[in-house]
C-alpha cells in the first residue's frame, strides 16, 4: 500500500509539470519523457525507474533502465521504424530496478504524439514526442513553470553635506607685563618683591567658540603665524584640534542639536618694549569628517605598479593609486600633500616606513606591512580602511602633528609620543602584536602633552595612558601621571 501511495504522489508531481505538446503530422524524431519533480521523498519505494523500449531502431535504451533523478529524458527515435504504429515499443515506469514492479506502461500509439498512461491507482503521467517539423500548435501549450526575478539597485538621491559652523572669537587681546626686579633695599643691597614676566587677558578673551550645525563631523585645527618683529611671542592651543560630531544627531528623524566646543589660546614668550597692536594671526582650519580632505575618495589618480613609479609619485605628491603590491627598500619620506589609495593591495615598507615629515598624507584602502609602519612627524595624516601590520608600533606620532584614523586595524601599538592629537573614529581594531599579546592598544607616553581622542570607549585597548570620558560621545586618552 505504501508503494502505491508514493507512486501516486510522484505521478502528481509529473502532472504538475506537463510540458510542450505539438500536434504533428510527421513521425516524431525525439521522444521526451518528463520526470522532473519525481521524487522519492517518502522513501517507501526504491526510486522511480524508466524503461524505454523499442523493438527496432537504435539510440534507445532497450534493455537498460534509467533511474529517474528529476529531469527531462530525451530519446532519439528517428531511426525507429514507424514508431507511431509500432505497438511493441513502449515506455514503462517501475518502482525498482527489477522490472518486476511495473506500475504503468504506455505504447507509442498511432496518431498521437502526447501519450497518457494510467496506472492501477488512477494516477496519470505523460510522455510526449516532438516532430522534427512541428506544425502550428494545436491549441496548447508551452508550460514554462520557472522564471527568474531580477533586482536592480538604484541609490537614493544623495544628500549633500552642508557645512555650517559658527565661530566666536574672544578679543585675543593679551597684555605682556615684563619682569620686575622689585624694590631696591639699601640695607640689604638687594631687590625685594621681584615678579616674573607674565601674560594676562580679560575674562574669555583667549577663547575661541566653535559651534557645528553641519550634517557631518568637523575637526578644527588652529595655527598661529607670527608677525615680523614679534617672533619671541608664541601661542599654544588647548583642546586642539577640536573635534565636533555631526549635528545630525536627532533620533528617528527628529531635529538634532548643534555640537560645540572651545579652544583656548595661551600666549608665551615675550614682546618688545613699546608693543601695542597686532603681533600675529590665528587661523582655524576646518575639515569635515567625510570630506576628501578627511579621508574621502579622490577621483584622479596616478596609477603606480613599480617601486620606481611609486617613489617618483610620492616625491611629486598628488593622488596615487597602487595597481598591485609593492615592496619598498628604504624609508618613504613624505613632505608634501599625498593621497595614497592602496587599492586593496599591500605596501611593504622598510626602515622607518611611511614617514610624514610636515607633509599631509591621506592613506586609504589597503595594508601597510613591513618594518617602520607609519610615522607622523609634525604633519597631518588621515588613514581610513587600512590595516597597519607593523607588529610593535603600527602607527607612531612624534613629536607633534595631527592624525585621524577611521575604520582601521592595527596589529601593533598606536603611539602618541610627546605632542599633537590623534583622533580615532569608526571601528578601530587592535590585533595582537608579535610576541606578548598585551603589546597592543593605545599608548600615550609619559610626559606627552598631546592626547588621543576616541569616538568610542577605548577602555580595554590601552597600553599606556589614562582614559577620560568626555560625556559627549568622545573619550580622551592622555599620559598617565
Amino acid at each position, binding site marked *: 500500500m505504501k508503494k502505491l501511495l508514493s507512486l501516486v504522489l510522484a505521478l502528481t508531481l509529473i502532472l504538475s509539470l506537463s510540458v510542450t505538446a505539438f500536434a504533428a503530422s510527421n513521425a516524431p524524431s525525439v521522444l521526451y519523457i518528463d520526470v522532473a519533480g519525481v521524487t522519492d521523498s517518502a522513501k517507501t519505494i526504491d526510486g522511480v525507474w524508466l524503461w524505454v523500449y523499442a523493438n527496432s531502431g537504435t539510440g534507445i535504451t532497450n534493455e537498460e533502465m534509467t533511474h529517474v533523478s528529476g529531469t527531462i529524458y530525451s530519446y532519439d527515435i528517428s531511426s525507429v521504424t514507424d514508431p507511431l504504429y509500432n505497438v511493441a515499443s513502449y515506455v514503462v515506469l517501475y518502482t525498482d530496478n527489477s522490472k518486476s514492479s511495473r506500475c504503468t506502461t504506455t505504447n507509442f500509439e498511432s496518431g498521437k504524439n502526447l501519450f497518457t498512461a494510467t496506472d492501477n491507482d488512477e494516477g496519470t503521467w505523460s510522455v510526449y514526442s516532438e516532430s522534427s517539423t512541428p506544425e502550428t500548435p494545436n491549441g496548447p501549450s508551452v508550460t514554462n513553470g520557472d522564471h*527568474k526575478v*531580477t533586482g536592480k539597485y538604484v541609490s537614493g538621491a544623495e544628500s549633500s553635506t552642508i557645512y555650517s559652523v559658527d565661530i566666536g572669537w574672544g578679543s585675543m587681546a593679551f597684555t605682556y607685563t615684563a619682569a620686575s626686579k622689585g624694590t631696591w633695599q639699601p640695607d640689604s643691597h638687594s631687590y625685594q618683591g621681584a615678579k616674573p614676566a607674565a601674560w594676562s587677558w580679560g575674562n574669555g578673551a583667549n577663547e575661541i567658540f566653535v559651534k557645528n550645525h553641519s550634517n557631518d563631523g568637523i575637526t578644527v585645527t588652529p595655527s598661529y603665524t607670527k608677525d615680523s618683529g614679534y617672533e619671541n611671542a608664541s601661542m599654544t592651543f588647548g583642546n586642539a584640534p577640536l573635534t565636533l560630531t555631526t549635528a545630525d544627531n536627532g533620533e528617528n528623524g527628529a531635529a538634532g542639536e548643534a555640537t560645540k566646543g572651545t579652544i583656548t589660546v595661551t600666549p608665551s614668550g615675550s614682546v618688545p618694549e613699546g608693543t601695542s597692536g597686532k603681533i600675529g594671526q590665528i587661523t582655524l582650519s576646518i575639515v569635515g569628517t567625510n570630506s576628501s580632505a578627511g579621508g574621502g575618495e579622490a577621483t584622479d589618480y596616478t596609477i603606480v605598479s613599480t617601486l620606481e613609479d611609486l617613489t617618483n609619485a610620492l616625491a611629486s605628491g598628488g593622488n596615487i593609486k597602487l595597481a598591485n603590491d609593492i615592496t619598498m627598500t628604504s624609508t618613504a619620506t613624505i613632505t608634501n600633500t599625498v593621497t595614497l589609495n592602496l587599492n586593496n593591495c599591500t605596501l611593504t615598507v622598510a626602515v622607518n616606513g611611511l614617514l610624514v615629515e610636515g607633509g599631509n598624507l591621506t592613506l586609504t584602502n589597503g595594508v601597510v606591512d613591513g618594518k617602520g609602519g607609519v610615522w607622523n612627524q609634525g604633519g597631518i595624516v588621515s588613514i581610513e580602511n587600512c590595516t597597519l601590520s607593523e607588529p610593535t608600533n603600527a602607527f607612531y606620532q612624534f613629536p607633534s602633528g595631527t592624525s585621524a584614523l577611521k575604520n582601521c586595524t592595527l596589529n601593533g601599538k598606536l603611539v602618541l609620543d610627546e605632542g599633537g592629537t590623534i583622533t580615532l573614529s569608526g571601528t578601530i581594531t587592535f590585533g595582537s602584536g608579535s610576541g606578548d599579546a598585551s603589546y597592543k592598544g593605545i599608548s600615550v607616553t609619559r610626559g606627552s602633552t598631546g592626547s588621543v581622542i576616541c569616538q568610542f570607549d577605548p577602555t580595554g585597548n590601552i597600553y599606556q595612558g589614562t582614559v577620560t570620558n568626555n560625556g559627549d560621545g568622545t573619550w580622551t586618552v592622555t599620559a598617565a601621571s
Partner: protein
Amino acid sequence: MKKTISLILALTLVLGMATTAFAADITPTGGDNHNVTANYVAGKDGGTIYGVDISWGDMVFTYTDASKGTWNAAEHKYENGTEAKWTCGDNQNIITVTNHSNAPIDVTPSYTAETAYSTAEVKFDKTTLNLGTADNGEGDNGAGKATKGTITVTVSGTLTKDDKTTATTGTTIGQITLTLKDASK
C-alpha cells in the same frame, strides 16, 4: 475467384455478428424463443490532455534606496526625504496563465530567494489561481474556450547595493516557480 471472395465475405459477416446462432427443434404448434444479451463497453476517449500557456512579465524590479533629503543647517534636520521603493515597468510583474486542458487546473506560485538577496521579499496576489477546464463548449462536441487568469507579483523589503545589483542589467535575486495541478483530482 468470385466464389472465393464471396465466401470470405460471408464468413466475415458471420464473425462480425455478436449473437450466436444455433440450430433448434421446431414444433408445429409452438414457436421458438431465445434470450438476447448485451454488454456495454465504454467508448475509448483520449483521456485528460493538459495544455497550459504561461506568459511571464519580465520580472525585473528596481529598488530605489531611501533619500534623506536636504540638510537644513538652521533646523538641524533633513527635509523632503523619500522612502525606499520598488518599481517595475507596466505589466512586468504579471504572470498570465491560459488553460487549454480538458480538466481544471490549480496554479500555485512560490518564490525561492538567492541567498545573497534574501532581504527582498516576493509576494503574490493569490495563493492559488484556479482555472476551469477548456472543455466548456455547448453540447458534447461544441468547441470550448480556454480559460485564463493572472497572478500579480510584488516585491518588498530591501536590496543590497553591490556590483551585481547596480549593474545595468541587475542580477537574479530569486526564482518564481509555478506548480500546476489537476484540480479535479
